[in-house]
């Protein structure tokens, strides 16, 4: 009983952070800022949901799958964000107007 309450609390917190991540995708101005919201909130949110599943299920193969899911989210989500951000910058998608500095652009221009 208590285990289910704790698990449900984790799932609730996870859904809340996933919601913040989606809100960030809608509200923030350009692709780079949106990636920030997408990677950070979604790691904590999805990891929270999976941890809740693990707490409810306990140490059987279903729970282990949830734990392994957390590990893979932590490993893959930053790599995906890096790939998308790099590809966006290389194909010339501009940063938002509020941007103060772009040292990546400066260095690439020096090389050309």
């Amino acid at each position, binding site marked *: 009983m208590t285990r289910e309450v704790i698990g449900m609390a984790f799932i609730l917190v996870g859904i809340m952070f996933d919601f913040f*991540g989606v809100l960030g995708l809608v509200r923030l101005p350009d692709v780079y800022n949106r990636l920030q919201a997408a990677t950070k*909130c979604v790691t904590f949110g999805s990891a929270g949901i999976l941890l809740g599943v693990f707490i409810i299920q306990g140490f059987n*193969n279903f729970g282990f799958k949830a734990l392994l899911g957390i590990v893979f989210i932590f490993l893959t989500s930053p790599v995906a964000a890096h790939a998308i951000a790099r590809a966006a910058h290389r194909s010339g998608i501009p940063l938002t107007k509020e941007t103060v500095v*772009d040292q*990546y652009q400066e260095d690439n221009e020096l090389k050309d």
Partner: protein
Amino acid sequence: MTLQNRSRLFVFIFSFLVWLALTSVRDMEEVVAGLIVAALVTIVAGKFLITSEKSGHILRRIFSAIKYLIKFLWEMMKANFHVAFIVIHPYLPIKPGIVKIKTKLTKDSAITVLTNSITLTPGTLTVDLSPEKNEIYIHWIDVLSTDVEKNTKTIGGKFEKLLTEVFE
């Protein structure tokens, strides 16, 4: 035993244990299937896990890894609340930009872990690595300074020392 074979043995045992954890073992068929899958994984990717001898005692490296993990989880929690605060703030208090930091790490695995950690910590996202592998370009949602040395300290400094102990 050569380094490559040691790496292969480690990958084989590790992937077999993960298979046992994922399937509820009821009969021999699942164990045999696990052995076949672990062998396939070892043939394809076995030699990439351990590529060089490490200095430093194994226990001290595990201790550093645990210290790093605690620090990383704490920073990740701060990052989540930071982004949630920005997103629900009515005026979106952001000052984005791409800055450059230097790194002293030399091993590929150490640099990978460092850049992944930077992506998951507050306000920063790794965009690219310079071809010489000593500079990292980082998108920062709230740029505080454009000085390379200062940014190296604030963004990479908190992880770099621990990662040096773990990986090199």
